[in-house]
């Protein structure tokens, strides 16, 4: 499997187009996985070995937004939890968070559960499969695709 290739990179501006609900881009997240023991171990340390989030389902497209402004202090949180609070100053899906943080999905889910538990983030779960009969949704998607 090839990563998205370099020659295509000019296609996307450094600042992606910001939809109305976006805040200014958050500052870049410092690299997290600089530990010499490597990325295989650290994710489980960050989550103390937990596999399931304390709260919330966190589908790949669940949208997450910080419920508080970017914290100055630590709030007793680890660097990864703080990184999530920084990134979610603008609305972001769980999948995008895992991409930006370069962490496995399961790890990010557990950390999101912690933050939700403490009231530090809000989330919007996607429509359940049974609810996909709203014609406005389809029309909006078709219009959005046509406008590309």
């Amino acid at each position, binding site marked *: 499997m090839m990563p998205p290739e370099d020659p295509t990179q000019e296609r996307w501006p450094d600042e992606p187009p910001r939809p109305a609900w976006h805040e200014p881009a958050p500052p870049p997240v410092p690299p997290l996985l600089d530990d010499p023991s490597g990325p295989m171990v650290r994710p489980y340390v960050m989550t103390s070995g937990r596999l399931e989030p304390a709260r919330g389902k966190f589908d790949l*497209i669940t949208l997450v937004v910080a419920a508080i402004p970017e914290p100055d202090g630590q709030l007793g949180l680890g660097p990864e939890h703080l990184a999530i609070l920084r990134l979610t100053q603008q609305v972001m899906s769980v*999948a995008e968070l895992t991409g930006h943080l370069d962490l496995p999905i399961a790890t990010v889910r557990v950390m999101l559960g912690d933050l939700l538990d403490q009231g530090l983030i809000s989330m919007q779960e996607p429509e359940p499969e049974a609810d996909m009969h709203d014609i406005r949704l389809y029309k909006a998607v078709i219009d959005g695709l046509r406008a590309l």
Partner: protein
Amino acid sequence: MVSGLSSRGADGRRLPTAVKIVIAGGFGVGKTTMVGTVSETRPLRTEEVLTDESVGVDDVSGVERKKTTTVAMDFGRITMRDEYVLYLFGTPGQERFWFMWDEVALGALGAVVLADTRRLADCFPSVDYFERRGTPFIVAVNCFEGEQAFDLAEIQTALNLGPNVPVMLCDARSLESCKKVLIDLILHAMKVRGLAPEPQQA
């Protein structure tokens, strides 16, 4: 809101609704290319680390000894009006990672199965999967061999597709072509779900 949890951010604005489309197909058929062609942002990659046991990693000490595999999915985003945001996920090429497919197919608007005429059989597992799951899908034949006129009816027969599954040609590198594939998928998904297609503009 099904979960009953707050869906407002710090400033009290309502969050948009996220929807997704799956881009599936065999190895090297152009899934990542299609995601990149339509994404408004640089495509990202989400990873799941698997161990031999796949679950039950409850202490750190044994982690290094376990064989791990990384399953990656590429995805992109398109922001829609009316506060919708569309995500496109390219499935992991290897079929053994079905659990990732389940995760990404659940709640998807529909799926595009990419096919390569030189290796048509490679898309059988994807076709089977979405048929079994009842996910609306269309087959898009990626024209690696140039603009040859493939007989779409022949492909439809070769893939043993029902007459109601649309089959079309595409070029995953072309925005116009990808747009057409995705719009046709949405129209097909509406039909499958019993929704009237949008009225034609005269």
